[in-house]
């Protein structure tokens, strides 16, 4: 096995394309999972079980089936019902949806962690329910959950290679394509491996710093 810097140089343009796609998928997937997770968490507090029950079943189902199966389902089955998206859009939606069923649990814990006294003070001041949520409960809950949400972003980053299975050319997809065309596996795979570390390790350090600042 010989290391060929030439192969690295040749691969780099493809690497940058793949990195861009990976970061797009990660950013959009995160936004979807953060927003949708909050929606799930709030719906699970609805007064009627006719809301809680379907949401509970749906999210349990999504959480307990593999992301890869969901990706295939959205990519190959939905078009049969004439619903078609680009591969990247499908991948982003799948990742966001899948992870929203985890972030909802993070939000739930954050909301339940706000002391009962905060609700009581809001009642004593006659704040409307909506205002109690937006001005009192959620700002405190979200502050608590930022570190946990950050951990899921890192998890999501490491799941983005699954998008390759539905033809998205993110980093692993680009590496595989290059490898198969040039019969050189070591260099592209090493490059993207290093890239994953260079993104996720500083990100986890950043998270720890954020955690120290926020959770006081």
């Amino acid at each position, binding site marked *: 096995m010989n290391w060929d810097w030439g192969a690295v140089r040749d691969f780099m343009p493809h690497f940058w394309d793949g990195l861009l796609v990976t970061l797009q998928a990660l950013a959009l997937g995160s936004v979807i999972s953060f927003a949708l997770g909050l929606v799930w968490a709030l719906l699970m507090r609805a007064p009627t079980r006719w809301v809680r029950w379907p949401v509970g079943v749906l999210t349990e189902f999504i959480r307990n089936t593999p992301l890869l199966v969901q990706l295939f389902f959205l990519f190959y089955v939905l078009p049969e019902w004439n619903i078609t998206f680009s591969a990247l859009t499908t991948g982003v939606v799948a990742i966001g949806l899948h992870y929203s069923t985890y972030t909802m649990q993070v939000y739930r814990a954050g909301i339940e962690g706000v*002391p009962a*006294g*905060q609700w*009581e*003070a809001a*009642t*004593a*001041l*006659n*704040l*409307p329910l909506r*205002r109690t949520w937006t*001005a*009192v409960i959620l*700002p*405190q809950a979200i*502050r608590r959950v930022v570190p946990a949400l950050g951990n899921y972003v890192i998890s999501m980053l490491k799941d983005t290679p699954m998008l390759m299975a539905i033809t998205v050319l993110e980093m692993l997809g680009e590496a595989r394509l290059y490898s198969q065309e040039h019969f050189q596996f070591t260099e592209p795979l090493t490059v993207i491996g290093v890239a994953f570390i260079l993104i996720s390790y500083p990100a986890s350090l950043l998270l720890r710093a954020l955690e120290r600042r926020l959770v*006081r």
Partner: protein
Amino acid sequence: MSADTPLDTSATPADTAPGEKADHTANPPVDGGELIRFDKVTKRFGDNTVLDGLDFRVDSGKHVTLIGPSGSGKTTILRLLMTLAKPDEGTITVAGERLHPAPEKQIREVRKKIGMVFQQFNLFPNMKVLRNITEAPVTVLGLSGDEAEARARELLEMVGLADKCDAYPSQLSGGQQQRVAIARALAMRPQVLLLDEVTSALDPELVTGVLDVLRDIAHTTDITMLCVTHEMNFARDISDQVLMFDSGHVIESGSPDRIFTDPEHERTREFLSAIL
């Protein structure tokens, strides 16, 4: 906004000279009229009956202190009035309007007349001191930001924390937090102020500052006070009436002088000798 909503903002800091009777109540009620009324109120927690068919009256402008062993139902009365809990039976009326049972809209209206200060302060940690005080006047009473801020600064002045507007609650001592909480409750200009063991969570050296503020309010405003406390000297200073609770019943009531010096009931004697 209805006519009886406390929107009178004429009392700016400049109008209120020190020592002058400050108007912190919305509609100073006619003295002596009945303000709070419990009829046959029962509250149970599981098998435990905390209040058992309680009848209870407070006249407006009066300062009433509830004493008694823990678990005797004192705090429950305050929580029922603040609608933090619902009675299992009976009716609660405030200023002639039904608080329980009542539709949500009416509860919201009646609740405007009531303010509460908690044992654990319960300030909003995500808001600065000033915004803790202005939040409800702006969103509930519809005051403009400037009006609410003027009112808040006046109240902070009164509780001796004018310089803490921009601090977060976590940067204050327990005593300071509690004084902010008092200002926050008064900013809504309630007719009734409920005080639930407001010094129990404080370090001993911080208690005096909080009680001094409350004494000042008791002596300079028309506000009706319902107070659960173990500070008997304070109760004696401010109260018109002391009610001794035991097992969900009022077993004795009277002027503080009489209750503290010459209690009739054996349970009252035992209780007072245990805590004095």
